[in-house]
């Protein structure tokens, strides 16, 4: 049976969308992910052959591109992206703008292209398509803020693309190979990386929103359309986690960056006003766990990072869907404008709570079977500071998403009178429902997930037994009781100690590192538009003046020289205070010469012309012989 790239089902399948209308289009956008899911299931069953599969090889210049590199890791991430996208398209199926669907399909299709890429050129190509396709999900909001945020988004991602391109070229020069994903870029002896690896890492860190390269995310995602943000949350950052796993597992700097990322994201998530911005910052925080897991590099950490990618993406998407439902129903996602929504949107509230319980890691909710693995791996790796930061961020996640936001949004005060809200339409509820069920199912039956991850971990990490040991009993009484205690005792920190300051709802925004390029960028544009453009205009005018002078001079050089000579003489005599009669006669002569210019050109006889030519030749020969 011929292998079909699941990404191509999205990339080419979406071309029909603009031709379809109404219910048929709604059914079609749901059908495509189902087809891709069947394709992936057949791969997992070995219908196309045993894993790893290496297929769809295309000759390109003197290299061979490999579009289909399927192993346990890519298969797992393929499942993750397609399952989540299915729920997303159910949620977004009511959207009438067909090109928004097309953008989403191109975006997800290219993400799958990244996942199954077996060489650096293919990776680079799909990496770029991913950035550009996702841009339209932001611009489709059609607001000035969305336009600006989209512009900055693509600027940052273009920079990331340049870094990746540079890394690919340097890697090709260093190794002569474009192979990707078969071995780590981290030197096993020194645990360091070379320049090509550094460039590639910067590109991956930009997409992974690793501080200080993170600000594009919290800037752009909240400005996208209601459904656009739901799509955006899952693919760019998680595909970055996937490529980091492939290329940089065990690179210790990532452990520190990940731990800092976790706390940095949660501090911002606790203070910003817009719910979708809270969730955007929380992507950074949760990405930190996975990045830290990749950096620690043991079986438990890497297994935890892979499991977290699935568990966390499902519940984060559910949270974005709930926030989108609030935005769609009320016209705002700012907590300063909201309150008391439980009465009018109870189903949305419960969906939010399932997502919040999952992302906090309550027992029997998805993240319980992923995040503790990463935190535990920091203990086993004897890394107290990363452990502390990851634990603190865990407390913050619970307080922010399971306590603060539900309290301020759904309770605390009556809904403002101008807001008339109700639960979202059926398709949006079904989309949320699918993910809510999955969030619980994956936690109640984590076995299949762990057994899919185990072979992938074997190919990537050291100390595999740490993972095997943990997954044998993820619901050990010690873990369950400690985590329950953790949440129950964190709650009073908000409720009894610091609830009051958070109830002061201020319509304010928090400055982040994007300040540097947003302000300096403006000055750069001003510098280009004002001083640089003025100088360019001056040079332009000067060049035209010189050119027109040469044209004027060329009409009759002898007469032109006479005019210029007269001009000079008048100037000199004026300066030497020569009597005005002389000057006046020269001036009248000059005036007449200018009026008559260019006059008829002086005609020379043939002999005189030849003499002139000979003279020039002699001068030229003398200069040539003299060595000039």
């Amino acid at each position: 049976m011929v292998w079909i790239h699941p990404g191509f089902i999205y990339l080419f399948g979406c071309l029909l969308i603009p031709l379809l209308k109404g219910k048929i289009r709604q059914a079609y956008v749901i059908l495509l992910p189902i087809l891709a899911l069947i394709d992936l299931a057949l791969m997992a069953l070995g219908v196309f052959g045993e894993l790893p599969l290496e297929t769809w090889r295309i000759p390109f210049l003197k290299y061979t591109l490999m579009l289909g590199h399927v192993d346990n890791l890519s298969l797992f991430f393929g499942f993750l992206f397609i399952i989540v996208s299915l729920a997303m398209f159910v949620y977004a199926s009511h959207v009438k703008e067909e090109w928004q669907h097309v953008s989403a399909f191109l975006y997800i299709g290219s993400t799958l292209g990244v996942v199954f890429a077996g060489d650096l050129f293919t990776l680079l190509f799909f990496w770029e398509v991913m950035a550009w396709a996702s841009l339209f999900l932001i611009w489709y909001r059609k607001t000035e803020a969305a336009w600006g945020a989209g512009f900055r988004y693509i600027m940052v991602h273009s920079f990331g693309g340049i870094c990746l391109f540079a890394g690919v070229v340097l890697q090709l020069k260093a190794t002569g190979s474009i192979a990707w994903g078969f071995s780590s870029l981290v030197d096993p002896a020194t645990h360091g990386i070379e320049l090509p690896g550094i460039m590639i890492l910067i590109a991956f860190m930009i997409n992974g929103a690793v501080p200080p390269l993170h600000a594009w995310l919290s800037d752009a995602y909240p400005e996208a359309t209601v459904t656009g943000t739901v799509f955006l949350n899952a693919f760019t950052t998680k595909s970055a986690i996937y490529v980091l796993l492939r290329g940089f597992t065990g690179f210790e700097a990532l452990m520190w960056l990940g731990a800092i990322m976790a706390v940095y994201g949660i501090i911002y998530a606790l203070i910003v006003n817009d719910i979708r911005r809270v969730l955007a910052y929380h992507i950074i925080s949760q990405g930190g766990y996975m990045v830290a897991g990749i950096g620690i590099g043991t079986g438990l950490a890497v297994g935890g990072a892979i499991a977290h990618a699935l568990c966390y993406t499902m519940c984060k998407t559910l949270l974005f869907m709930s926030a989108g439902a609030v935005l769609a129903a009320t016209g705002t996602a700012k907590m300063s404008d909201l309150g008391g929504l439980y009465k009018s949107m109870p189903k949305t509230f419960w969906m939010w709570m399932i997502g919040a319980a999952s992302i906090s890691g309550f027992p029997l909710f998805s993240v319980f079977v992923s995040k503790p693995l990463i935190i535990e791996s920091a203990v086993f790796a004897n890394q107290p500071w990363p452990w502390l930061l990851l634990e603190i961020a865990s407390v913050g996640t619970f307080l922010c998403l399971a306590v603060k936001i539900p309290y301020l949004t759904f309770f605390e005060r009556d809904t403002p009178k101008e807001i008339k809200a109700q639960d979202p339409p059926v398709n949006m509820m079904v989309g949320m429902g699918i993910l809510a069920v999955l969030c619980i199912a994956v936690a109640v039956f984590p076995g299949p997930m762990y057994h899919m991850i185990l072979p992938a971990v074997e190919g990537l990490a050291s100390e595999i037994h740490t993972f095997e040991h943990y997954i044998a009993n993820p619901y050990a009484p010690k873990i369950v009781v400690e985590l329950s205690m953790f949440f129950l005792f964190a709650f009073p920190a908000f409720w009894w100690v610091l609830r009051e300051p958070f109830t002061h709802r201020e319509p304010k925004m928090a400055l982040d590192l994007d300040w540097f390029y947003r302000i300096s960028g403006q000055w750069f544009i001003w510098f280009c538009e004002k001083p640089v453009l003025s100088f360019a205009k001056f040079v332009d005018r000067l060049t035209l003046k010189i050119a027109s002078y040469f044209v004027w001079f060329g009409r009759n050089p002898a007469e032109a020289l006479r005019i210029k000579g007269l001009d000079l003489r008048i100037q000199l005599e004026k300066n030497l205070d020569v009597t005005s009669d002389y000057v006046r006669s020269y001036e009248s002569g000059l005036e007449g010469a200018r009026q008559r210019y260019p006059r008829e050109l002086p005609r020379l006889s043939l002999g005189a012309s030849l003499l002139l030519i000979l003279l020039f030749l002699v001068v030229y020969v003398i200069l040539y012989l003299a060595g000039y």
Partner: protein
Amino acid sequence: MVAIDSKTLMKLYYLALVAVVIAGLAVHFMGAAPEAAEVPEMHGEEAAHEAAQEEGFWWLEIPLFAAGFAFVGGVILLALSKLGVYPLIKVSEDYYERHSIKKREEQEKEAGGEQ
């Protein structure tokens, strides 16, 4: 629709608090280890590594450490973010619009035109 009675909820919360403290102490002092049959058998280096892991950080051996950590950690994090960081970085929502050079120039032009 589910009716939420805050008093009942708080009572349930206190009950859960007591239950989890008792469970925490029980797990700590009775050493509730995972059943041996479910855990893969380990030998040599793995077993040594496992022994090292069992030790962990010394503070994790303090009874009810997770409870204290969660409360204190929560207070510190909330205070740091809301009372420490937020006042330093909060700006009005139109901050970037007000600091837009283009908008400022447009406003200056408009003001000049009016005069």
